[in-house]
C-alpha cells in the first residue's frame, strides 16, 4: 500500500461540521481494513483535535498520512496559540467559554485524551500565530 494523504479544511464557524473530518478518516480506515482499536484511537485523537481547532482557534487545516502500520495526523491552525502549554496538558484545565461549555465541551480532557490514545504527540504553539499538533497512531498487531 502506498502512503495515502488526506486533507481537510476545518471551518471554525460551523459547529454542525465539527467531527466531519474525523468521521471521514474513520470511514477510510475501515475501508482499508484497519483493526477496530487502531481506528478508534485515531478517530478519537482526530476528533479532539478537530474540536479544539473549532472552539479555540476558528478552524484550520488537517493533513492525514496513512501507512499500513501508522497514521500520522497534523493539525495546523492560525488561532491565538496556547499561553501555558503545561497547564493545557492537565486534565480539567480549560479556557472554553460558557457557550461552548453548554454544548458539552470544556471538560479539559481533549489534550489528555489525545496523549492517551496516540503513540506520539507534539504541539508547537506561538501566541498570536497559531498551533500545530502532530500525532502518530501505530497499529498494534
Amino acid at each position, binding site marked *: 500500500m502506498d502512503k495515502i494523504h488526506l486533507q481537510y479544511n476545518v471551518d471554525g464557524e460551523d*459547529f*454542525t461540521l*465539527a*467531527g466531519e473530518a*474525523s*468521521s471521514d478518516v*474513520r470511514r477510510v480506515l475501515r475501508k482499508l481494513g484497519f483493526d*477496530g482499536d487502531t481506528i*478508534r484511537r485515531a*478517530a*478519537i485523537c482526530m*476528533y*479532539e483535535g478537530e*474540536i479544539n481547532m473549532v472552539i479555540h482557534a476558528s478552524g484550520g487545516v488537517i493533513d492525514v498520512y496513512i501507512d499500513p502500520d501508522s497514521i500520522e495526523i497534523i493539525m495546523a491552525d492560525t488561532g491565538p496559540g496556547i499561553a501555558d502549554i503545561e497547564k493545557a496538558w492537565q486534565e480539567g484545565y480549560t479556557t472554553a467559554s460558557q457557550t461552548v461549555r453548554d*454544548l*458539552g*465541551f*470544556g*471538560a*479539559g*480532557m*481533549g489534550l*489528555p*485524551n489525545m496523549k*492517551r490514545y496516540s503513540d506520539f504527540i507534539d504541539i508547537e504553539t506561538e501566541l498570536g500565530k497559531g498551533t500545530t499538533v502532530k500525532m502518530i497512531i501505530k497499529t498494534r498487531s
Partner: protein
Amino acid sequence: MATIKNLQQQLELINHNPDADCDRELSGCYIGDLLSWVMAHAFSGCVWITIMSNINVAAVASLTDAACVIMAEGVQPDQDLLDRVKRDDIALFTSPLSVYEIAIKVHDVLNA
C-alpha cells in the same frame, strides 16, 4: 444478551430514528454529559445516557461505537442531531425519566 429492542420496550423509550438497527446487543451502560470525558470512557456496545442534545452527540456516539443514546429528563434532540443520527444510522431515544431512574431500568434489562 439484551438488545436495544428489549431496552426500548422495557423503558418505553421514544425512538427518534426508526431506521436504526435495534437488534444490536448491549455490552453495558455509560452516563455523562462532558463530551471529551464520554469520549474517553464510553465503550463499544454501551447504552449512553445523557442530557446533551446537540449534533456533537452523534459524533461521540459513533466514535465510541455506542449501541444507542438515551436522552434523559425529557430533553429533546436538536434538528441537526436528528438529521445526523439518521444519516449515520445511530439509534437515538428520549425518555421523560430522570438519569437515575433510567440507569436503574437499564441495569435491570442488562441483568435480566
